[in-house]
């Protein structure tokens, strides 16, 4: 696979948020402004790249049976580093992202890439994959944040747009988050005539952990669903 396609793949064709629909929690929770969305995206990207590199280095050392706990420790280590850096240099961003910084650990995009890509590919490829996926995540969160900020607060990156017209505050709140995400996905469906998003509903098959969680669990649930 050529190097450029690894980066662009994560960015467009396999965009983690808009196409694969992974990492929904931060996507919905921190996108109350474009700055927050981008900040979360960049923090996640930093963790993703570092974790991908380290896991790719260690892929022959980590025993297969305990790989998931090993990945989680590596990821948690980098999340702690990012957390401390944000506290030291960007305290305002740290405050507005709050709980969702430590929760980067359980972001399924990162564990998913470790399991699906970094544990099977070379160090350089894994780093590029981290950059691509991270950029895709950042751009998606930035767009979500921008839309919600414009509609819900009447500003874009903190600059007032509409003068005295009162904004629709609901878009800053929880229902607005779900709604904007729904419209974004519907728009992509419409523009690509339903071809871009392979996943037709939320279910076990979309979970990044599907490969690692015991398969009888998944099939059992699928059968009942």
């Amino acid at each position, binding site marked *: 696979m050529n190097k450029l396609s690894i980066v662009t793949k994560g960015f467009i064709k396999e965009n983690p948020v808009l196409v694969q*629909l992974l990492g*929904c*929690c931060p996507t*919905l*929770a921190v996108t109350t402004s474009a700055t927050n969305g981008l900040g979360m995206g960049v923090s996640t990207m930093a963790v993703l790249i570092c974790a991908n590199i380290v896991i790719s280095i260690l892929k022959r050392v980590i025993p297969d049976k305990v790989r998931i*706990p090993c990945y*989680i*420790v590596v990821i*948690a*280590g980098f*999340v*702690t580093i990012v*957390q*401390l850096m944000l506290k030291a240099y960007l305290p305002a961003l740290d405050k507005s992202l709050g*709980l969702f910084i*430590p*929760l980067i*650990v*359980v*972001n*399924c995009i990162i*564990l998913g890439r470790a399991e699906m890509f970094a544990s099977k590919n070379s160090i350089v490829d894994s780093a590029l994959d981290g950059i691509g996926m991270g950029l895709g995540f950042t751009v998606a969160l930035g767009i979500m944040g921008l839309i919600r900020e414009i509609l819900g607060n009447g500003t874009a990156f903190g600059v007032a747009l509409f003068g005295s017209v009162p904004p629709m505050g*609901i878009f800053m*709140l*929880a*229902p*607005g*988050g*779900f*709604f904007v*995400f*729904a*419209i974004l*996905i*519907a*728009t992509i*469906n*419409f523009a690509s005539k*339903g071809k871009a*998003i392979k*996943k*037709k*509903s*939320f*279910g*076990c098959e*979309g*979970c990044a*952990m599907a490969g690692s*969680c*015991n398969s*009888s*669990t998944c099939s*059992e*649930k699928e059968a*009942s*669903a």
Partner: protein
Amino acid sequence: MKEIIVIIMSVILVDNFVLSQFLGICPFLGVSKKMDSATGMGFAVTFVMVLATAATWPIQKFLLDAYGIGYLQTVVFILVIASLVQLVEMTLKKYMPPLYKSLGVFLPLITTNCAVLGVTITNIDDGLTYVQSLFNALGAGIGFLLAMVLFAGLRGKLEDCKMVPVAFQGIPITLVTASILSLSFMGFSGVVEGLFA
């Protein structure tokens, strides 16, 4: 006593984990197709939340804080939760097969559920006492269960609806439904203050 009721009521209705704080969205959207799996997932999450809080609160106070290594919180908590879930799964499988059949199948998925890690960290950040933390976790779990059950019911009805525009079929309409459910939960804001003021 009143304090604990306030904590439970506000975390179930006003600050519902799923519908207003966006924690645990993955299982909320993924395992809510059928009512029985939604209920099972809800109970399993409640159980693990209380257990995880019971284990992590003393670790934070008597180990991390006592030795000034609070920065290890994220690493320690996720490892404790992961091993706890594994332990519970093995215990249930061996000693309580019926319970394992209904709850156990959801356990592996809960390790990386952000609602569980979220509730343990929130308890510490908000400076709750041990008892308050346990009830906060219980309330958060019940709130999750409530949201799951309501949403599974709505999705059941949605399956029968044939009028959805093509672009909205599947995921978008599910998210719109979640949006409306979350909108209705906004009606609860101020309820707890009003009741116990």
